């Protein structure tokens, strides 16, 4: 009688542990999806701001063609990218191009003073921050997910839960990419 009770208790504990580990993996996987969706929402918002920004800058500095074109082509790439790695790469390029455009704007006092540009600048900087925070949140989630998948014992259930380790959202560092080739 007593031993039956012990066996039942052990099985019950094992079942609880199994369910908890399984649910943890599923929860992490869902929040990874959600946080990637948040990055995409913010990237879309930023892409939507760009045509307006380009038009405004054109009105004051139409001859800054190279800078404007760089932004437009980076935006086109960013809106068509899919998958974590591609989205991240296009995001990095667009960020660099936008910085270039805002730096150019510095030398046009009329542009800098225009109300339209000021409100665009605020929208752009908040969206830039939101993209960065969404990225940070996504990477933190992926870190816990990968840890759970790759460590014992939670990793035992990764196969059953159909959850696997996922890629971090890494944007290429603009400064690294611009390192010139050194020739001797």
């Amino acid at each position: 009688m007593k031993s039956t009770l012990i066996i039942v208790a052990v099985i019950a504990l094992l079942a609880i542990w199994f369910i908890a580990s399984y649910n943890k993996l599923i929860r992490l996987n869902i929040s990874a999806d959600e946080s990637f969706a948040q990055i995409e929402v913010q990237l879309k918002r930023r892409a939507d701001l760009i045509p307006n920004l380009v038009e405004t800058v054109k009105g004051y500095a139409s001859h800054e063609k190279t800078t404007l074109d760089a932004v437009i082509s980076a935006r086109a790439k960013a809106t068509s990218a899919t998958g974590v790695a591609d989205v991240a790469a296009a995001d990095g390029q667009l960020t660099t191009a936008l910085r270039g455009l805002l730096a150019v704007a510095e030398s046009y006092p009329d542009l800098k003073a225009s109300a339209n540009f000021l409100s665009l600048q605020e929208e752009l900087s908040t969206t830039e921050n939101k993209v960065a925070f969404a990225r940070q949140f996504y990477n933190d989630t992926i870190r816990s997910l990968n840890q759970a998948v790759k460590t014992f014992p939670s990793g035992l259930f990764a196969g059953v839960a159909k959850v696997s380790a996922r890629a971090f959202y890494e944007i290429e560092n603009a400064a690294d990419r611009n390192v010139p080739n050194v020739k001797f």
Partner: protein
Amino acid sequence: MKTFGLLAGMGALVWLVVFAAMTYMGKSSAMIVPVAVGFALISVWGSYYFSDSLVITMTGAKIIERDENPELFNLVEEVCIASGLKLPKVAIVQDSAPNAFATGRNPEHALIAFTTRILEVMDRDELQGVIAHEMSHVANRDTLVSAVAATTAGAIAILSDMLTRMMIFGGMGDRDDRENNQNPIAIVVSLLVLILAPIAALLLKSAISRKRESLADATAIAFTRNPAGLRKALEVLQADSTVVRQKSNAVAHIWIESPLDGKSVSKLFSTHPPLEERIAILRNMEANPLN
């Protein structure tokens, strides 16, 4: 986890008071314990459950919509994305002192409020730090923690008050019990416990509040990864000597900068760690970003 220890200390204190009461008055006095705890529970948990609406009335905060201050909402949204929390209600308090607070029984009922002055004096990064600090209180469920602390402190206060009255009027005391228990040392000690317990409870409550403030600073940096923003914000608060026009001391602990600092008897009774100390910790984080 230190908060947990302090809360356990509160629990031990309640037990000590009950023990002292039983020694002094006899076993029948134990019946007032549920009464005192009940009183404290009802008053504190009422204010905990309705904390968002109650604090609005006590501070005169007015809830605003996005189009009334889109820039502030942008900042709040940024911190929400960084923390994964839901967008809280945002409110404004008409006041000439820079300050801010957060309340609400859970993240779904969170409210963060800013004085009109803090929005004028702080730049984007500083405000972001302040918002992150407030959202940390929401994430760490500090309204709940302070409600638990206030309940126990309140129960102890009511208990000691009732017992002291009973001693003076000698009414309800059980004669038989009392005569069986005439050890004079025990009586003196239990009397001391009854007198000192409310003060000890207040000290513990303040210690818990200070711990939660430091924790909120640390959590804020985990959200924004920008210690400089919050550090500069605290320096702005330090440089400003005005304090919010408090309608009630009961809500003093919820502000980012304590409105009672000047009046505080000593550091032990203040609800916030000193600003210099908080700034020094943040400076240290800036210097050693990997810690």
